[in-house]
C-alpha cells in the first residue's frame, strides 16, 4: 500500500485540526489565518471546521497575539497562535521572553502555560531582509521555552501535535520554503516527541547536523557525497530546546567528524551551541575541527541569484564536509 503523501502545509493544518478536535480548550488565532487560512495556507479549513469562536483573525498586533494567548493559557485555555513570520517575533519578544517563558515561575508553578507560537521562518522566496530571518538561536537562549523546527511533513505534523499537547510554551518554527514540499504522513494519529533527534540518514564517515529548510538540501548533499564514496550520517535534532545532544554525540563518536548546517546567519547561530557541546562532550573522538555552515553575516537580498549566494545550499555543505575529510 502506497503511503499517503501530503504537503508540509497540510500536515500543519491536520495537526491543528486533530488537536483542536481532541481538546476543546485549544483555539487558534493570528493574522489572516482564519478567513484565508494563513499567508502560507497552513491553517486552511480550520475556520470552516471550528467556527469563529475558536479560529480568530486578529489585527496587526503581535504583542496582543502573544500576550492574549498567555492570558488565556493562565485562565486554562491552550492557545495555538501564529506570528506570520519569524522576523516579526522581534515585536513580541517581551511577551515571549519576559512573560510567557517565565510565567510559570512567577506564579509558583501553578498554571500550565500551554501556548504554542507558530511562525514561518527562514528565506528562499525572494522576500528580502525583513522576511527571511530565522531566530531559533535567540529562543534556545531562553529558559522556559521549547523550540521546535521540523524539516518534513511527517515531523511537522507529529511535532506540532506534541507541541500542542505540551504544557509549556513552544516556539514552533516552520521553514517557509518547505510549505509546498510533500512527504509521507500516515492518516493515523501519531506524535513525534519533543526533544528527540532523528537520524535522517545513517552513515559512518561524518556527522552532519542540520535543521529547518536546509535539511532536504543536506540530504541531497549526502547523496552526492555517497556517489563519491563518502558516507555521511545526517541528524535532524527537530527540537532545538531541549536538544537531544546524546544522539548527536553518539554519532560523532562513531564518525569523528561533524558539520553543522543551518540557514540562519552563522555568527551566534544555534550551530555555535551545537559545536560547543560536541567539542565538550566528544573532544577525544574528534579528528578535525567541527565545521559550521550558515548564512554569511549579511542581509538576505531579494535578487534571486544573490539570495542563492547568501542562503547556504548543498554545495556549501559538501565544501564543509570536504574541508575536514
Amino acid at each position: 500500500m502506497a503511503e499517503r503523501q501530503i504537503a508540509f502545509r497540510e500536515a500543519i493544518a491536520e495537526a491543528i485540526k486533530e488537536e483542536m478536535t481532541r481538546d476543546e480548550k485549544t483555539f487558534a488565532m493570528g493574522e489572516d489565518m482564519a478567513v484565508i487560512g494563513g499567508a502560507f495556507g497552513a491553517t486552511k479549513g480550520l475556520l470552516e471546521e471550528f467556527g469563529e469562536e475558536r479560529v480568530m483573525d486578529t489585527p496587526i498586533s503581535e504583542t496582543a497575539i502573544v500576550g492574549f494567548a498567555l492570558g488565556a493559557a493562565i485562565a486554562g485555555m491552550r492557545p495555538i497562535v501564529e506570528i506570520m513570520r519569524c522576523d516579526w517575533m522581534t515585536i513580541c519578544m517581551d511577551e515571549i521572553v519576559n512573560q510567557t517563558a517565565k510565567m510559570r515561575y512567577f506564579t509558583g508553578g501553578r498554571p500550565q502555560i500551554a501556548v504554542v507560537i507558530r511562525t514561518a521562518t527562514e528565506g528562499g522566496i525572494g522576500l528580502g531582509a525583513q522576511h527571511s530571518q530565522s531566530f531559533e538561536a535567540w529562543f534556545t537562549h531562553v529558559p522556559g521555552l521549547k523550540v521546535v523546527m521540523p524539516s518534513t511533513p511527517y515531523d511537522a505534523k507529529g511535532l506540532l501535535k506534541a507541541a500542542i499537547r505540551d504544557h509549556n510554551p513552544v516556539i514552533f518554527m516552520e521553514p517557509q520554503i518547505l510549505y509546498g514540499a510533500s512527504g509521507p504522513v500516515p492518516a493515523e494519529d501519531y506524535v513525534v516527541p519533543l526533544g528527540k533527534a532523528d537520524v535522517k540518514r545513517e552513515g559512518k564517515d561524518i556527522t552532519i547536523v542540520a535543521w529547518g529548510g536546509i535539511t532536504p538540501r543536506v540530504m541531497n548533499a549526502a547523496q552526492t557525497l555517497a556517489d563519491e564514496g563518502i558516507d555521511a550520517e545526517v541528524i535532524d535534532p527537530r527540537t532545538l530546546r531541549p536538544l537531544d545532544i546524546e544522539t548527536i554525540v553518539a554519532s560523532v563518536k562513531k564518525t569523528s567528524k561533524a558539520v553543522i548546517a543551518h540557514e540562519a546567519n552563522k555568527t551566534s547561530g544555534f550551530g555555535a551551541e551545537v559545536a560547543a557541546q560536541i567539542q565538550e562532550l566528544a573532544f577525544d573522538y574528534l579528528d578535525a575541527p567541527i565545521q559550521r555552515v550558515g548564512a554569511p553575516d549579511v542581509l538576505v537580498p531579494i535578487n534571486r541569484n544573490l539570495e542563492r549566494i547568501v542562503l547556504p545550499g548543498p554545495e556549501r555543505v559538501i565544501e564543509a564536509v570536504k574541508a575536514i575529510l
Partner: protein
Amino acid sequence: MTNYERKGNRMELTKDTLLDMYRRMVRIRIFEEGLMKFDEQGLIPGTGHVSIGEEAVAVGATTAMGNKDYLVSTHRGHGHLLARGAKMPIILAEVLGKATGCTGGKGGSMHLSDFDRYILGTNGIVGGGINIAGGIGLALQMQKTDQACLCFFGDGASNRGVFHEALNLASLWKVPTVYLCCNNQYAMTLPLCKNCANQDISARAVAYDIPGYQVDGTDVIAVYEAVAAALQRAREGKGPSLVEVISYRLRGHSMRMDRMPGGSSYRPEREIEEWEESKNPIKIFQQKLKELGYMTDESATKILSECQKEFREAVEFAQNSPEPKPESIYEWIYA
C-alpha cells in the same frame, strides 16, 4: 474628556463592608511602612514599590470584584494583593525572599501571585499585564463563565504600545476585562505633563470605542463605584472599560530609588506635603466613617493595632521561614 456614568446596580455598601474596606486600607499602609523599615535594614533583596497614599485605589477596586474575578497587578502591587485577600505572611515572606513565599522566595515584590484567589500578580515589566489581562478576559468569554478580569496599570504604562494593542483587541472582541489606570501622576521621575500628550488618560477610551471614567483616587467609594460599573458592563458582555483613577504616591518610586542620592529630587516637596496632609485617603475615609457614625477614635485605633498585630505575626512567620533550598532554582522553569 471624562465620561463617567454611574451605571449598574450599585451594590449597597453596608457598614460592615465599609469598615472592612477601611481595615484593608490600613493593613496595606502598615504592611508597606513595615517593608520600608525592613529595607532600611537591608533585608529586602532588590527592591519593592510601595503604594502608600494609593490604598483607596486597591481597596475600592477590589471591593467591586466578584469572588472568582481575576486580578492582574503591576510592579506596585502589594496593596492590590492584600486588598484582594492574599495572606500577608506569604506576601511578606516572598518580598523577603523566603521559601514560604508565594514564589518560593525567588520572585520577590515584583513577582507576587495568589493563584487560589485568581490573583495573577505583580510584574516587573511596566505594562506587562495589560495584554495578559485581555487574554484572561478572552478565556473567560470562551468558557462562558460570568467571571471578569481587573487589570491595574500606571500612567507610565499607558504610553506603552501594549496598552494600545490590548485595548483595541479587548474592545473588538468585547472581552470582560476592566482596565484600571492608576494615574499617580508620575512614572518614576516623569511628571504627567511630560508623559501623556493628553493628560486626560480616560479620554483614550474614545480610540477604542469604550467608556472612559475618571475618578478621584482618594475617595475609596468613588473608585469602588466606577469599577463596579465597569465590571458589571464586562459581565453583561459589553466589553472592556477604561477607568482612570487620579492618585498620588506619597513615597519615592521604589525603595531602591529612595536610597539613591537625589532619588526623589524630581518632584517638589510641597506637592508631597499637600497630598500627605489633605489628600491622604485613609484620613479622608476615616473622617467619612466617623461622619457616618460608623467609627470612633477608639475603633480606629483598634483597627490600627489589629493590623499592626497582623503585621507582627507576618514578620514572625517570615523571619522564622527557611531560606529556599539551592535546588529550588530548577523548579517551575518547565511543567
